[in-house]
């Protein structure tokens, strides 16, 4: 029943695929129930957002926006010679393009507000990233990041110290303590045999890592695989397949609309939009709730290349597709009835010093660590979410190393895939790999790290110097997880998706943003000028009053009749001004002509009603008393 007059909406197959029904994000039913992201703000951290284009302007949130490249509040992209700064605007359109404006397209969460943080159009440092990740974090709910380290198949990089700290701070203090939601694109290095476990943003436990599939549900040529991939959603594929239709900038050659947005950049904002829909129906979902709901509701589908494996908790995961395809209907219905997961529990093993050689394939080095019941007693950790392994390995050709982690259940994760392009001679220095493939499994038991050298060059052997295992999870038991799975399936009919059903939400924390309002130099200058003007005006005015009083005294005006400045008072626009310049006792009593100057009497009694005029007195008694009278 949903109809929009936006001319490109019929081509937005990812929202409503009429050519191949079902191959879309299944969002129209959610919209029909008035779930459009209302009350949620998504911020696109990118090269800017052209917030004046028709499809963005009505939903634009200036409060959540900032330009870190120019250090001002306006994230408007700057045109460059390569016409390259349309990226953020395209991502923003996917999320919140305005419907029914007869222009271009529609966003997934078209009722949400969209902000922009411009940070990619210039030199970037760790401290700038840290600022970006927490910028307006009580206003912005979801941070959509369609960027990362180079996907050239040889880079190993991620957030540095401050970026990591900001991600952690964001999930703890952002969104009134429910935690900022960081959505990141998994990477476009498929052609370079890259893998998103070498990207620290994708690897982070604080992010939602989103990959791409094409219209046919297959992994596109550009997509990367990894064990930390949470889920996938649609994007463009090869030339024969359709890309994502979205808003575009209208600067330079832009028209305000494009049919050619693609890459994992196009997938992550769709996920961000779907999460906005979830937060509308359940605003108190924590960052971990969002991750859980994705794990519980993503759809495993038929793809023989995907190599799905089902873990002990019943979740199927593929290095290509994560836990599967995001489905807006399932996400929103699950969110509606979701009660928060227990607090995050973790376990960190000692630093395990090995100094063992890494043999060449088909042989391998296998190291073990047993996590006992006693080890987990303190934290209460029972079932797993993320599992991380930090390794230090020397090797003359880093890309020849292959690392597999086996959870106690036997579930295998290829945490370190070989990369043919990576010939770095320095190996890994405390690099952290992570996997989500053991989600929901019991934490206790033996973890096996298996490393081998798959290189075919006769090089020096690598050495595993040390490694450390970190487990993240909760006190949920396997039974709790099964119960939650059953509960969610019962909600998928949509029976709770109406305004009459609402679970209570705890109040959020009041966390002030330190940089709320700062006085800019211009504001300060204006205030100083206004202040100076006020001082001078006051001095001038006081002088004028004093001088005029002196004049009156010297001319004996008060003895001749009504105070000569009385007419001036009458002309005064301001009663307060009149009060200051008026004698409290008017001149009506001076010569008994009050009947001719009724204004004096009226004003006097109005302004100072408690002061009655003295009775008529002979003029000589008043001589020399003008100061008292006035």
């Amino acid at each position, binding site marked *: 029943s949903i109809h929009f007059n936006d001319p490109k909406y019929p081509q937005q197959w990812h929202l409503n695929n009429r050519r191949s029904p079902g191959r879309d994000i299944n969002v129209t039913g959610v919209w029909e129930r008035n779930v459009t992201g209302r009350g949620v703000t998504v911020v696109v951290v990118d090269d800017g957002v052209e917030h004046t284009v028709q499809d963005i302007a009505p939903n634009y949130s200036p409060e959540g926006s900032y330009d870190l490249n120019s250090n001002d509040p306006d994230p408007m992209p700057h045109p460059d010679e390569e016409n390259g700064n349309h990226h953020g605007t395209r991502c923003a359109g996917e999320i919140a393009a305005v419907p029914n404006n007869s222009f271009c397209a529609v966003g997934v969460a078209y009722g949400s507000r969209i902000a922009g943080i411009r940070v990619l159009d210039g030199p970037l440092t*760790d401290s700038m990233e840290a600022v970006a990740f927490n910028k307006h974090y009580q206003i912005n709910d979801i941070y959509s990041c369609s*960027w990362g380290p180079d996907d050239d198949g040889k880079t190993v990089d991620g957030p*540095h110290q401050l970026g990591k700290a900001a991600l952690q701070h964001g999930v703890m203090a952002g969104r009134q303590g429910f935690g900022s939601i960081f959505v990141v694109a998994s990477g476009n290095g498929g052609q370079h045999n890259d893998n998103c476990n070498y990207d620290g943003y994708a690897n982070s436990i604080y992010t939602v890592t989103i990959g791409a599939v094409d219209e046919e549900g297959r992994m596109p040529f550009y997509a990367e695989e990894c064990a930390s991939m949470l889920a996938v959603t649609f994007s463009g594929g090869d030339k024969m397949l359709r890309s994502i239709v979205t808003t575009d900038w209208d600067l330079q050659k832009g028209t305000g609309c494009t049919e050619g947005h693609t*890459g994992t950049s196009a997938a992550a904002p769709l996920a961000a939009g779907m999460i906005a829909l979830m937060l509308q129906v359940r605003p108190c979902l924590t960052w971990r709730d969002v991750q859980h709901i994705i794990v519980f509701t993503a759809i495993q589908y038929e793809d023989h290349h995907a190599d799905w494996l089902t873990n002990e908790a019943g979740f199927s995961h593929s290095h290509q597709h994560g836990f599967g395809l995001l489905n807006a209907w399932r996400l929103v219905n699950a969110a509606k009835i979701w009660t928060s997961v227990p607090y995050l529990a973790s376990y960190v093993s000692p630093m395990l010093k090995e100094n063992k050689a890494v043999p060449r394939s088909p042989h391998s080095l296998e190291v073990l660590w047993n996590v006992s019941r006693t080890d987990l007693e303190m934290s209460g950790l029972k079932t797993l979410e993320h599992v991380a392994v930090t390794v230090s390995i020397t090797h003359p050709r880093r890309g020849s190393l292959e690392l597999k982690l086996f959870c106690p259940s036997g579930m295998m994760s290829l945490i370190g895939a070989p990369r043919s392009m990576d010939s770095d001679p320095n190996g890994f220095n405390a690099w952290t790999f992570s996997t989500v493939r053991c989600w929901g499994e019991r934490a206790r038991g033996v973890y096996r790290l298996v490393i081998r050298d798959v290189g075919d060059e006769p090089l020096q052997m690598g050495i595993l110097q040390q490694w450390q295992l970190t487990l993240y999870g909760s006190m949920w038991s396997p039974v709790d997880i099964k119960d939650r799975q059953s509960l969610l399936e019962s909600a998928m009919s949509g029976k709770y998706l109406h305004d009459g059903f609402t679970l209570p939400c705890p109040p959020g924390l009041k966390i002030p943003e330190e940089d709320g309002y700062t006085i800019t130099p211009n504001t300060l200058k204006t205030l100083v000028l206004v202040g100076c003007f006020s001082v001078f005006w006051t001095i001038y005015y006081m002088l004028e009053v004093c001088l005029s009083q002196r004049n009156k005294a010297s001319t004996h005006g008060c003895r001749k009749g009504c105070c000569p400045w009385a007419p001036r008072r009458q002309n005064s626009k301001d009663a307060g001004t009149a009060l200051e310049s008026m004698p409290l006792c008017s001149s009506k009593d001076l010569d008994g002509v009050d009947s001719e100057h009724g204004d004096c009497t009226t004003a006097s009694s109005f302004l100072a009603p408690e002061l009655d005029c003295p009775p008529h007195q002979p003029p000589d008694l008043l001589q020399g008393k003008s100061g008292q009278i006035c």
Partner: protein
Amino acid sequence: LSEAGGLDILGTGGLSWAVHLDSLEGERKEESLTQQADAVAQAAGLVNAGRIGELQGHYLFVQPTGHRQAMEVEAMRQQAEAVLARHEAVRWHSEQTLLKRAKR
């Protein structure tokens, strides 16, 4: 102010450091931390450009403006590194370098 820090300075080729100050008295007030940051920055021959976003106790120290020869810059770097490394209030510090990030 903190937002201004990194880029304006690095954009012009200046040096900058992220510094995490140790809060010896536990939860110290922001004001006194800032005062301490000013003092540490001054000791290192740098200028405190303000707190880094929402990260309490983290400050950006930048090289004072002005044109310098390469040798002067290197001497300034070494001096700053030495001061920050031995200062008891500095828990951690890191010279800010440019990161390479790509749109996807």
